[in-house]
């Protein structure tokens, strides 16, 4: 209860009452008479219909963004793609195959050079 004497010059304890307290308690009691009616049965249905109408008005791409399943899925695909594609890896394999070809060619040339001596 709101009592101006609670902390003021005529301060009283929590279990005590002053004239202000009694007056305010009477008002408090009288306010109890103002009951509110029950919420009507169709309240939730009407609310969800409004939500559905509002959702339907949203652009399709915004609906894809929420709930955040679609963005998370896209992010996961991108992450997996990035993981699989390591930029240096492809260059290295290309480089190694090129080196292998050069080595084989060199070996064949060396064999050609050696052939007359064997004969």
């Amino acid at each position: 209860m709101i009592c101006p004497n609670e902390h003021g010059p005529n301060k009283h304890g929590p279990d005590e009452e002053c004239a202000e307290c009694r007056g305010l308690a009477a008002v408090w009691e009288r306010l109890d008479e103002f009951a509110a009616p029950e919420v009507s049965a169709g309240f939730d249905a009407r609310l969800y219909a409004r939500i559905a109408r509002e959702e339907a008005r949203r652009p399709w791409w915004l609906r894809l963004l929420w709930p955040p399943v679609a963005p998370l899925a896209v992010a996961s695909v991108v992450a997996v793609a990035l993981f699989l594609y390591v930029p240096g890896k492809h260059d290295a394999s290309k480089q190694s195959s090129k080196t292998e070809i050069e080595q084989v060619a060199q070996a064949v040339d060396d064999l050609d050079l050696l052939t007359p001596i064997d004969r």
Partner: protein
Amino acid sequence: MEAIAALERDTQLMLLVREGDDTSFALLLERHRGPVVHFMYRMVQNQAVSEELAQEVFLRVYRSRETYEPTAKFTTWLFRIATHVALNSIRDRKKEKGHESLDDSDDEMPGGLGRQVADRQPTIEQEMVHEVRLREVRQAIEALPAKQRAAVLMHKYEGLDYAQIAGVLSCSESAIKSLLFRAYEALRGRLAHMA
């Protein structure tokens, strides 16, 4: 997830709504439908309008789910939205109709209370006395400035404490105590003859 678990139940539910969980929204609606509709009813004193406004509140909650941050207690946040919607509605109605007469809402007597009275089968005089007293309480509440009215309704009927009401109305706690005291004093003045 641990951080979420430490928060109050309503805030946890709202964070789940933010993650796209519609069941949590249904639970929040279940828990707060009554208090919000009743608050609106006592603010505007018309059942159809109060339910329309309460729906607007929950619609705004749903719309805000993506950007929700638990900076205050959920109830404080919810009643901040409710008070904003109610005060806007009162302001708009005043603009539209000028000062509204309570006689216009005579057919909006609270149904629940009417039924309670009917169940006890009061005499015609008792019923008339009750209706007069009720009308005077309604008029006394309606005569309060809108901000005082909102504060009294949250304090008296919805059980919000000073800190929460201060959060809702963006005031200090001491300002709220002073506001409430003035409101209750005004009500006492208007209802004194009903003792």
